[in-house]
């Protein structure tokens, strides 16, 4: 629970800034390069990189460098952390059912019956 709350603290801190929220909003439409995002934020690249790093550190986005271009992608999984407790439980049971399904559909040969 403590770890979960610490994670939430980081997430909300990351989301408590209009520049970073704008990045999340923009990435919801699809991946974008850091340069492109910085231009939209009307900010110098070094200042903008601080925001990118913060979002990445809190798992809200992933970045990957290809050549000279660093591309940012929204990490949808992390949004699950800010969902309510019931949605979390649902996700756990879904994953649970995935594992059961995988187990019974790949171990048929071992059925003694």
């Amino acid at each position: 629970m403590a770890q979960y709350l610490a994670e939430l603290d980081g997430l909300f801190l990351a989301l408590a800034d209009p520049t970073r929220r704008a990045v999340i909003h923009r990435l919801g439409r699809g991946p974008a390069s850091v340069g492109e995002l910085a231009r939209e934020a009307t900010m110098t690249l070094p200042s903008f990189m601080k925001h990118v790093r913060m979002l990445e550190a809190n798992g809200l986005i992933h970045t990957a460098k290809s050549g000279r271009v660093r591309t940012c992608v929204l990490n949808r999984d992390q949004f699950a952390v800010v969902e309510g407790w019931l949605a979390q439980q649902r996700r756990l049971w879904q994953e649970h059912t995935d594992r059961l399904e995988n187990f019974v559909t790949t171990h048929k040969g071992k059925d003694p019956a």
Partner: protein
Amino acid sequence: MNPDLDLSIERIIRAPRKLVWDAWTDPDSLARWWLPSPMLCRVDRLEVRPGGAFVTRMSTDGTEFVPHLDASFLVVNEFERIVFTNSVDSGWRPASPEPVAMSAEITMVDHEEGTDYRILVRHADPAAKDRHAELGFTDGWGTVADQLARFAENVR
């Protein structure tokens, strides 16, 4: 079903019902899917009958196992239905499990493609349990999650 407290899952599993049943009731089988890898599971007690114990432990290294679930079965209809709860432990002592007390009802029905598999999980009210703790934010919690979801609605 109370939509604020309960959840249900329905899945058509492409395997015979008996196989699904065995995956739940055979300790060695259960241990292989009960926890997400790389977590290791040890099934200590799996007494699949009303009032029977349901105790599993987990480990990250395979040597030290810590408690995972300490529950008891409420209802068992062979090949059809399993109901268990973590609000009564394997020694029939009332419990206050983390993160929330629940009962889970698992039902299996034959389906032309395999097994119609359903789960209904009924939860205790976590807000009531945690009222003394830091979860004062529970009340506004749904709203925050909703707003964030709306904000990132093009995330889908």
